[in-house]
């Protein structure tokens, strides 16, 4: 298996607090990797450093053979690493379709010159983007809601819309921040199936931070467990569940 992402001895401090304290692990290409750990383990901080939204104090993050740890977030995204947020960021007063179209990049209509000199290129791009948006909305099961205001979607549907928008950027690694938070139980199965379908059809790799361990244990091929800023262990869901240290990290020790 190829490692698409290598996290090497990453440290991130906030004043005297070492939120991430020397974390090392790899994410294998085409895998669904879960990143878990008890409250305060440093998951979200590490997640933000990978996405480029937070600078690291020391260490290296290598994506697809290139270092991305000193790269601004938008360039990390262009390189193919895109993150979602725990609270799905949708533009509520725009249609679902327009929300997805907004994510399309490299639009020749972005510059006046492009519009004047290459009207056909602009139209072609528009058509390609629409076709792609239709396809992605079908993939996440939102095609029936295409013309609805995004504000009318439920929490779970917003997560699906967020996923479609992220896929518009044609990423190779998608970082999902608590995809199950605020999603009604009825929609959870659906969301899981869509994630697995996207991985299967497009070969996209997922790194998922999630508190709902039932979900992680079902969705992930590999699970990285963090505790106190470090990686406690890495393994299959079954291995991780059977690991006494992991149980101790979550339930504490009776001492």
């Amino acid at each position, binding site marked *: 298996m190829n490692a698409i992402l290598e996290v090497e001895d990453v440290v991130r401090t906030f004043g005297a607090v070492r939120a991430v304290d020397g974390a090392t692990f790899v994410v294998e290409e085409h895998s669904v990797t879960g990143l878990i750990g008890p409250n305060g383990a440093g998951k979200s901080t590490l997640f933000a450093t990978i996405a480029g939204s937070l600078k690291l104090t020391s260490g290296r993050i290598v994506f697809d053979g290139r270092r991305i740890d000193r790269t601004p977030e938008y360039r990390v995204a262009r390189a193919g690493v895109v993150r979602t947020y725990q609270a799905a960021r949708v533009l509520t007063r725009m249609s679902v379709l327009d929300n997805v179209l907004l994510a399309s990049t490299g639009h020749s209509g972005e510059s006046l010159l492009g519009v004047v000199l290459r009207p056909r290129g602009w139209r072609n791009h528009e058509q390609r983007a629409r076709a792609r948006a239709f396809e992605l909305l*079908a993939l996440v099961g939102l095609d029936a809601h295409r013309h609805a205001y995004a504000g009318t979607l439920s929490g779970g549907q917003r997560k699906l819309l967020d996923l479609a928008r992220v896929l518009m950027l044609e990423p190779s690694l998608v970082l999902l921040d608590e995809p199950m938070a605020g999603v009604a139980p009825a929609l959870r199965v*659906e969301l899981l199936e869509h994630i697995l379908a996207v991985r*299967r059809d497009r070969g996209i790799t997922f790194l998922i931070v999630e508190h709902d*361990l039932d979900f992680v244990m079902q969705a992930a091929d590999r699970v990285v467990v963090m505790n106190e800023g470090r990686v406690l262990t890495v393994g299959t869901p079954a291995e991780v569940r059977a690991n006494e240290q992991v149980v101790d990290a979550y339930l504490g020790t009776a001492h």
Partner: protein
Amino acid sequence: MSPPLLEVAGLEAGYDDALIVRGADLVAEREQIVAIVGPNGAGKSTLLKAIYGLIRPRGGSVRFEGEDVTGSRPDRLTKRGMNLVPQTENVFPTLTVAENLHVGSIVLPRAEREAEIARIFQLFPLLADRRRQRAGSLSGGQRKLVALGRALVTRPRLLLLDEPSAGLSPIAIDLVFEKLVEIRSLGIAVVMVEQNARRALALADVGYVLDTGRNAYTGPGRQLLDDPRVVELYLGGSSTIASSSTSTSTPSGMNPAT
């Protein structure tokens, strides 16, 4: 037989359109330590806040010493004999230890305050030595003792604690948990929410394990400590997310992942 000290039945509470506590039951008797544990998002702290009136319950009831106090204001509950130590911001950092206790004591008749504060200093000799020190300059464990003292000075019969071990060093946790046993021996019941489930269950007379806002398991603390179902609840186990959902239909246009 007298009614239980605290009796919570079918309590429902939440924030905005999210219902977090979905019909929780809990009973605490006098001189009992009760631990409420459960995975993240189980509704532990919300349950505690709903009992103490910090958020208004949407259903169910809270009875204290047999009387219905559902949705009562926190200050009224304090006067009735119930007090809560919040997880954070539970001391005034710029006030001294003694001043913090004074602030806590204002619910008492003026004549009784000094004696009560002296009693707290007896219970916490560590604080007596630091009575003129600012609370903000103390260590995490010492600060937690100040917070406990500030709640105890109101002479409660029931003490509610939100995550007493949060942010404390292992030594400080020992210090605080030892004090809880001492507090119980004074005839005060303790109901605590705790992330360190095993420490709490090892100490507790009764444990409640919550999951998604409801009671999952209840029993003597020691018994729950060895219950493999509790571990499964935390780490996800044989149960599938499909089983917790009301619909298992296939999303439109998709094949079920197999």
